[in-house]
């Protein structure tokens, strides 16, 4: 241990020398990208006693998730929730004055949330002796990176690298981006203005979450989706409940419709739609938010100077340990494949760090939960009902509508559903899906059930606290056996 420490000190001396002479630094592990995949990878590698360097364009760790994604959107969705709750308090006998929105104050509050979290990560990085470099890295060859630090380039040599460069919003070609009226998820979170009329292109989770924020802040939000339904990855019965509420919050939801053309006219955007049977229409919006998916950031990384080749979708192929075609270079998170979720990236980052330190480890989750933070939330884990049908699995589905939940009634939020997808033969839990307030927090129980190989009886016999929404999971298990106290089924 003492030897290791003195080696670290030596390295630090070298680093100091390096800075003075602007010669090159070297490290055992370099992590490219400090998002929710990269920073846990770097921290864990450091905790395992490795010499670690973390490269990111921002000054602190956090990545898209903290700076321009999960965290700011959840902060703003909380604002939307507070405003909605105030509206709904009226029927409970409490009437608030109409909310007054100070957009600048809201933005700086949101930014303070980001700042508190990213600064905290910066400190956690420092106390672990992770060397942070602010810059943009590309591979010179399989053992060297060139880091552009604002025009000044430095060559870094490494034994192991972890690529954690994430993803960026997919752009639709030929839109008038120079109009300044077209938003992506990053710029939408800046809430520069609250447009009177906002069009959201794409009925996926990002579009619906951000659409909900703007709707709560007063925008008339329209959503356009090419497919016949919203949130194509989630089961239909979950989405129906959300769609019903969104119908009241949004101006309109156009399904099986595509945007044919957008033109800037008199400081607004004129959008031409093409409907199911070629029906065309034209509507004018103040702003348009493009949220049609994300693409991996594998370009401009200098991968051509290594043996790493991306697949047809632009992802970096990896094995179970997240090793690329170069066995000493790992790739994790969005850049290494679907699902593009922060918690998947974090887990992969830990696996990669452990693999580098020589542990026998692989990325082998039985299930990765997914959450849509709309109101109500939608969350699912494991197999979906649609997937079970497609794979012709012999499953039995049990559902518990939240109309029968006492806790949901006290919240005046009976718009919910809890569902179990169960292997008929073994009664193993294969999937859990929930629509309703706090579904995202509750889905963790489903993930644990699947990972532990629980069967329906395990869920049924586990006492859940009353009165909580979590009881719906236990009651769904009771529905499976035909007898739930609050949901009568005819025999």
């Amino acid at each position, binding site marked *: 241990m003492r030897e290791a420490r003195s080696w670290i000190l030596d390295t630090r001396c070298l680093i100091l020398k390096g800075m003075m002479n602007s010669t090159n630094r070297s490290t055992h592990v370099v992590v490219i990208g400090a998002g929710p995949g990269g920073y846990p990878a770097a921290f864990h590698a450091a905790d395992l006693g490795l010499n670690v360097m973390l490269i990111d364009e921002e000054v602190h760790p956090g990545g898209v998730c903290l700076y321009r994604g999960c965290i700011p959107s959840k902060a703003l969705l909380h604002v939307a929730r507070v405003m909605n709750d105030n509206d709904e308090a009226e029927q409970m006998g409490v009437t608030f004055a109409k909310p007054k929105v100070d957009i600048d104050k809201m933005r700086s509050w949101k930014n303070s949330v980001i700042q508190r979290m990213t600064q905290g990560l910066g400190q956690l990085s420092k106390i672990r002796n992770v060397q942070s470099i602010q810059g943009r890295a590309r591979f010179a060859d*399989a*053992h060297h990176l060139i880091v552009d630090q604002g025009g000044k380039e430095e060559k870094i040599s490494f*034994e192991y690298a972890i690529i954690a460069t994430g993803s960026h919003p997919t752009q639709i070609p030929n839109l008038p981006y120079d109009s300044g009226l077209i938003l992506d998820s990053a710029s939408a979170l800046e809430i520069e203005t609250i447009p009177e009329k906002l069009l959201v292109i794409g009925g996926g989770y990002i579009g619906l979450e951000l659409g909900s924020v703007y709707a709560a802040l007063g925008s008339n939000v329209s959503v356009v989706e090419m497919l016949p339904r919203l949130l194509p990855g989630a089961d239909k019965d979950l989405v129906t409940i959300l769609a019903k509420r969104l119908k009241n919050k949004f101006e309109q939801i156009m399904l099986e419709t595509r945007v044919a053309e957008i033109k800037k006219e008199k400081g607004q955007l004129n959008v031409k739609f093409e409907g199911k049977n070629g029906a065309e229409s034209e509507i004018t919006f103040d702003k348009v938010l493009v949220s049609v998916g994300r693409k991996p950031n594998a370009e401009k990384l200098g991968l051509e100077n290594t*043996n790493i080749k991306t*697949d047809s*979708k632009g*992802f*970096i*192929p*990896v*094995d179970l*340990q997240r*090793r*690329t*075609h170069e*066995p*000493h270079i790992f790739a994790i998170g969005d850049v*290494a*494949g*679907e*699902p593009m979720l922060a918690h998947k990236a974090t887990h992969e980052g830990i696996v990669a760090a452990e693999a580098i330190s*020589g542990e*026998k*480890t*692989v*990325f*082998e*989750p*039985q*299930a*990765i939960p*997914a959450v849509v933070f709309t109101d109500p939330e939608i969350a699912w884990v*494991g*197999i*979906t009902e649609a*997937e079970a049908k497609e*794979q012709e*699995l012999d499953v039995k589905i049990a559902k518990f509508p939240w109309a029968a939940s006492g806790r949901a009634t006290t919240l005046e939020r009976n718009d919910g559903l809890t569902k179990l997808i169960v*292997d008929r033969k*073994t009664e*193993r839990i*294969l999937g859990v899906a929930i629509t309703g307030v706090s579904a995202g927090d509750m889905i963790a129980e489903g993930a644990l059930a*699947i*990972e*532990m*190989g629980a069967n329906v009886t395990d869920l049924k016999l586990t006492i859940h606290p009353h009165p909580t929404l979590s009881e719906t999971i236990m009651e769904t298990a009771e529905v499976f056996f035909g007898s739930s106290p609050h949901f009568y089924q005819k025999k």
Partner: protein
Amino acid sequence: MKDNSIEFKIPELGENITEGDVVKVLVSVGEPIHVDQALLELETGKAAVEIPSEINGTIKEVLIKDGDKVKVGQIVIKLETHQKEEPAVPPTDTQEKDSPPKNRTSDTPKIKEALPTPPSPNPSATDTTSRSHVPVRAAPSVRKFAREIGVNISEVTSSDGRITVNNVKAYAKQRLTQEPLASTNTGIPSPSIPDFSKWGKVGKESISTIRKITARHMAMCWSTIPHVTQHDKADITDLEKIRKHFKQKAEDAGGKLTPTAILTKIVAAALKAFPTFNASIDVQKNEVIYKKYCHIGVAVDIPKGLLVPVIRDVDKKNIIELSVELSRLAEETRKNTISPDKLQGGCFTISNIGGIGGTHFTPIVNFPEVAILGVGQATHEPVYIDGNFEPRLIMPLSLSYDHRLIDGANGARFLRWIVKAINEPLLLALEG
């Protein structure tokens, strides 16, 4: 409606072969396949074979996975035929009986060609959220434990289906007591290798299945058998004269009268004179097994590795017959048409590197055999005979043997016997 689904069973692989390990399933559900297309790669003893399809069709269900043990006759794949009416396997009616029997090699599986594969690892960006089957019922901590001690969790069973750490331990214990000798684990972990690309350009290639099997087998032989190698020299001047004299006779019979062919006969005679060399040790039962038959393996060098085809009952065949059989076996081995059972059952191995050059070397005993004879290149050497140096053709011989069973004196005697039989070819007829 007629059900046109066909169950594909592991075909007869050869004599005495009842099971094998699935190295790789080469097809997946929904994949269209054609006659003779390889469905899976199977490892039996020392050989890897590809099992071909007998029909044109589509894969409906794959019932096995990589690493599974399968038995001959076991249903492993379900297929759907393209031709609805035509049965996949022609019925054995009277007409069929009249037709000449099918050439055996055409339906026995072919030795797999070692194809260079892209550099390891084999990464692919996959969506891990959805699974097409009910996953292993084991908690993440149990799966981690199994992985760390090298147990494939999908092979572990328990009474109620839920796998615990104790189930994994019990499985590992059972495996360890089951196959003590088959394991190549010497207890010494393979050290990780440095990254050579730091010092210069390197090329990479995956290890072929044949090479993997060879590596495992050799490591096991070398680490479990205490080897002694005895060197000697044989004067083949007279033998060479005889060989040249009868060469044409062998050629007329369709063989090649090589020194190796003659050596098989000499070794067979030596095995008769020294029964401990035609034996195996059963460590578990504390027994020595003496073989009353005499099958001799001859190492054949082919591009993808080393294979040892076996000549049966060498003691009952004359040298011309042996030269014909050896030529044919070597040819089949090189052409990959040899059936796996011809690579098994040897009592003793001869490895002749004389064609390439070199003198003595230290061959590795081919378990479960107890000795191996290495043959070097014969060269002219001056030999002191009756007061004069005469040029004689001298062949270097190296005998490695299992010192657990064979003592040094016996080793020397055995090799001396062979040398004398070569020096004086008549000895063979007298004592052999």
